[in-house]
């Protein structure tokens, strides 16, 4: 039986006749969760979120209830809530659908979460490129304010919170929570050193701050609606709820699907939903959760131990769509932005494409990322231009090893993981490519022309 979606967050996305105005949202039961739960004690709401086991959906997957629990409430400083709408992880396009098609769900999620953590003020930091999304959210906030869902004394509760829309200006690193905070303070988006700048203690203006992803804040609404314990029953242990999978690359039908955690496999996603590979082609590799996650080669086998203690062997297509399963296979669920590559893809070119992205997006603050990312980029550019050497593959992997774990922020891992996985898993392609180039150079010929992708 083919896998099905379970649309909780996306329940109204692409629904015929559904519009982004507040009236439509209210007709569909919108703001009832806010109305009901703003009358409860904020600690109760936090407890529900904790009970639900819901994890952040920005890529790191940290349990949201636990994150909220780290807030410093002793210092007396104002608490800030920031919605991270700076969706920039390559392969990811799930928050866009919420912002553009169901913005009030996000607004309601922001307000009720702000209430739960007793935030003094909330910000929505949206990508600078999403100009229309910014305008849609601005209008939604204005509508919500007019109906007393945002602003002073919300629904007579005594709680007030303003939401300020803030636009970014083209930086991937401003999606990193402390980089975002720096950007929101009007500076270069340099991530902060931790310790001491843990956002829950020293965040925006050195006040306790929570940064949550768009989808996470929407999840909070549904957690409260169902009750934390009920929500925990959705999905699998350790990864409750649903995941929104965005599939792009070499499939018949790229797109987005909301699937209950762990209730379908990669095969279900790629074949039942995406229609399989393009005609005449075969799947070669997938990057499961956004470009920073480690690539999986179709044909790899993973010996895993399941939660019930039994052993199993998975091929890439067998992997269940939940956080733990991808972890067992040496990769990660990340943002659920799956990039699919088929047998027409030159994997060295693919890595070169990502290296160029990471080099361009490195903020430049710390040595390993700044120098490592550009060095990796220069190597893969050179290899793709026809001047590769046999030792370049191992050098790339080794440089990546020197970056991961040694940087101020996770951009170090983001740079390193693609290299650390691509090189060992596609060593045969690297060698074949370089040997062909060496032959061509030996015979004085032009560098071997590239197929498919091209790098500037």
């Amino acid at each position: 039986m083919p896998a099905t979606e379970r649309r909780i967050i996306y329940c109204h996305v692409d629904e015929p006749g559904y519009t982004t105005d507040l009236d439509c949202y209210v007709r569909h039961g919108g703001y009832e969760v806010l109305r009901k739960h703003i009358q409860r004690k904020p600690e109760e709401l936090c407890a529900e979120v904790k009970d639900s086991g819901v994890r952040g959906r920005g890529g790191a997957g940290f349990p949201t209830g636990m994150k909220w629990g780290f807030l410093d409430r002793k210092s007396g400083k104002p608490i800030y809530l920031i919605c991270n709408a700076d969706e920039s992880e390559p392969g990811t396009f799930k928050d866009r659908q919420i912002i553009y098609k169901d913005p009030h769900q996000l607004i309601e999620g922001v307000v009720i979460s702000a209430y739960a953590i007793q935030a003094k003020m909330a910000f929505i930091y949206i990508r600078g490129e999403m100009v229309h999304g910014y305008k849609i959210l601005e209008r939604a906030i204005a509508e919500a304010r007019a109906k007393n869902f945002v602003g002073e004394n919300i629904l007579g509760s005594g709680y007030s919170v303003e939401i300020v829309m803030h636009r970014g200006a083209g930086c991937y690193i401003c999606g990193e929570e402390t980089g975002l905070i720096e950007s929101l303070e009007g500076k270069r988006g340099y991530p902060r050193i931790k310790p001491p700048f843990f956002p829950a203690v020293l965040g925006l203006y050195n006040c306790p701050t929570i940064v949550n992803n768009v989808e996470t804040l929407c999840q909070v609404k549904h957690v409260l609606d169902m009750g934390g314990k009920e929500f925990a029953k959705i999905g699998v242990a350790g990864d409750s709820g649903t995941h929104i999978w965005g599939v792009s690359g070499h499939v018949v039908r790229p797109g987005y699907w909301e699937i209950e955690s762990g209730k379908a496999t990669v095969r279900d996603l790629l074949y039942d939903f995406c229609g399989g590979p393009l005609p005449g082609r075969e799947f070669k590799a997938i990057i499961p959760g956004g470009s920073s996650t480690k690539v999986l080669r179709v044909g790899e086998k993973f010996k895993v131990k399941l939660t019930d203690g039994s052993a199993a062997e998975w091929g890439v297509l067998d992997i269940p769509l939940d956080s733990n399963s991808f972890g067992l296979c040496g990769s990660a669920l990340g943002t659920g932005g799956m990039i699919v590559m088929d047998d027409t893809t030159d994997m060295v070119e693919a890595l070169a494409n990502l290296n160029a992205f990471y080099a361009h997006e490195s903020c430049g603050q710390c040595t390993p990322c700044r120098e490592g990312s550009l060095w990796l980029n220069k190597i893969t550019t050179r290899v793709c231009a026809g001047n590769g050497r046999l030792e370049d593959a191992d050098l790339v992997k080794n440089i990546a090893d020197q970056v991961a774990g040694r940087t101020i922020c996770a951009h170090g891992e983001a740079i390193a993981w693609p290299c650390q996985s691509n090189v060992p898993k596609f060593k045969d392609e690297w060698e074949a490519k370089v040997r062909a180039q060496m032959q061509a150079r030996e015979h004085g010929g032009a560098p071997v022309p590239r197929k498919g992708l091209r790098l500037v």
Partner: protein
Amino acid sequence: MNLSPETAASIDRTIALYPQKRSAMLMVLHAIQEDQGYISKEAVAWVAQKLEVAHIAVLEVITFYPMYRQAPIGRRHVKVCRTLSCALRGAYKVCDTLQEELSCPLGETSADGNFTVEFVECLAACGSAPVVQVDEHLLENISPEKAKDLAAKLKADTTPAMLPSRQ
């Protein structure tokens, strides 16, 4: 500084929203760029004074964030996403076609001043790759086959620049 009164008023309103003035930096720079087409040296000094920061603090921000520019560009800003998902579906060919059809070298402005074509990084619309953003409009599913049509449409569109470049 020649800002329109609406822009100036909107900037003041924006600054008032934040607990600290400096936070309005990115929004103020967007407003100025949308009013004038780019951020001039004069604008840098103006922003520094308005937000009570050192001049260097403004320059640091402008050069860090790729969306800000310090010189005017073409009437239409054509941005082709080049990151993996779009590249896998032919983004480089799309860009080649657009450059050729619009007579615009990559990263520069065409001789007739109508177009600036450049690569940008992932625009978060990977499911409809390849994507091209023209000014503030995201155009999806611009496959290599459709690139020529897009170029033709852009050439035929004679509406004034969305982001005027006033001297």
